[in-house]
């Protein structure tokens, strides 16, 4: 059996791991700028139309959105534990925890799409399209619901990418190619999943609570 070695241009796995983590954090910084820009847009409209935004938040599916927050927070805890399990060589536990994270991620998407379905049933579509807007004329409702679909949709896309990344890592764990020595790879996938969680942590109060 050949000894596991870091890539040629690295002196050690520690150095390779740091370079990989730095790359992921730079990517996350760009994600913060992306979501920061759309949150700035949301806050700009919220300042203009506080009454319409308050009315829309009250109309939103608060309980489902809040359950989804709990689902994502639990999934983040699970994936953080999976990294720890892989580091100490508990391979099966790590695989189980990554699987649990993915199930929770899928549950999040299922609840999210159920919410969208309920909004569509009420005649609420992006761009102020639908019966709801024929009956509710307050200026700002169109902006709120368009931003709601746009920002939560963008987030759902990130959840989907995160699920794909975790799925790939899970295959590696199950096949035995992702070993404790390479646990930094799972760590990087987990860091991305935590970012998805952090973004939702800010979207939840904006669209469902405040």
């Amino acid at each position, binding site marked *: 059996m050949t000894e596991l070695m870091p890539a040629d241009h690295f002196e050690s796995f*520690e150095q390779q*791991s*740091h370079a990989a*983590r*730095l790359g992921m*954090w*730079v990517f*996350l*910084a*760009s994600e*913060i*700028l992306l979501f*920061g*820009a759309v*949150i*700035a847009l949301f*806050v*700009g*409209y*919220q*300042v*203009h*139309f506080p009454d319409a935004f308050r009315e829309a938040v009250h109309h939103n599916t*608060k309980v489902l959105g*809040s359950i989804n*927050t*709990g689902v994502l*927070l*639990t999934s*983040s*805890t699970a994936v*953080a*534990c999976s990294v*720890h399990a892989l*580091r100490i060589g508990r391979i099966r536990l790590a695989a189980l925890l990554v699987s649990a994270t993915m199930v929770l991620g899928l549950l999040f998407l299922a609840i999210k799409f159920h919410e969208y379905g309920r909004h569509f049933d009420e005649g609420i579509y992006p761009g102020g399209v639908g019966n709801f807007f024929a009956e509710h004329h307050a200026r700002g409702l169109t902006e709120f619901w368009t931003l709601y679909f746009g920002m939560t949709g963008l987030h759902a896309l990130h959840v989907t990418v995160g699920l794909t990344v975790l799925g790939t890592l899970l295959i590696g764990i199950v096949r035995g190619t992702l070993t404790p020595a390479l646990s930094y790879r799972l*760590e990087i996938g*987990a*860091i991305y999943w*935590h970012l998805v*969680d*952090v973004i939702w*942590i*800010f979207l*939840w*109060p*904006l669209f*469902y*609570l*405040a």
Partner: protein
Amino acid sequence: MKRAHVPIKVVLRTGAALLALWVASFALSYVPLGGAAIPVALAIALLKAVLVALFFMELLHESLSIKLTIVSAGVLTMTLIAFMVADIMTRAPPPLLVAPAARDAPPE
């Protein structure tokens, strides 16, 4: 030098703290806080995000280069939002509430 990791006990406590803050946010949304509702909700959100970053993402034990990368992105983004909101709030009348005809009319 080998990097330190966050112990599993701390990871689990962080998870419990996050769920407690989640319940607190939900309960507070039923308390009439008026204009303070959004700042309070966002302050709790920021606290949760910091917990996730420090203990789940292990930023606590990361190198200075990584800490600088992410903290500068966060601070600069918050600066962008703060200036934008300050601009909109201090304009009289707010730009989106001015009728297009009046807005486009040439200055006298």
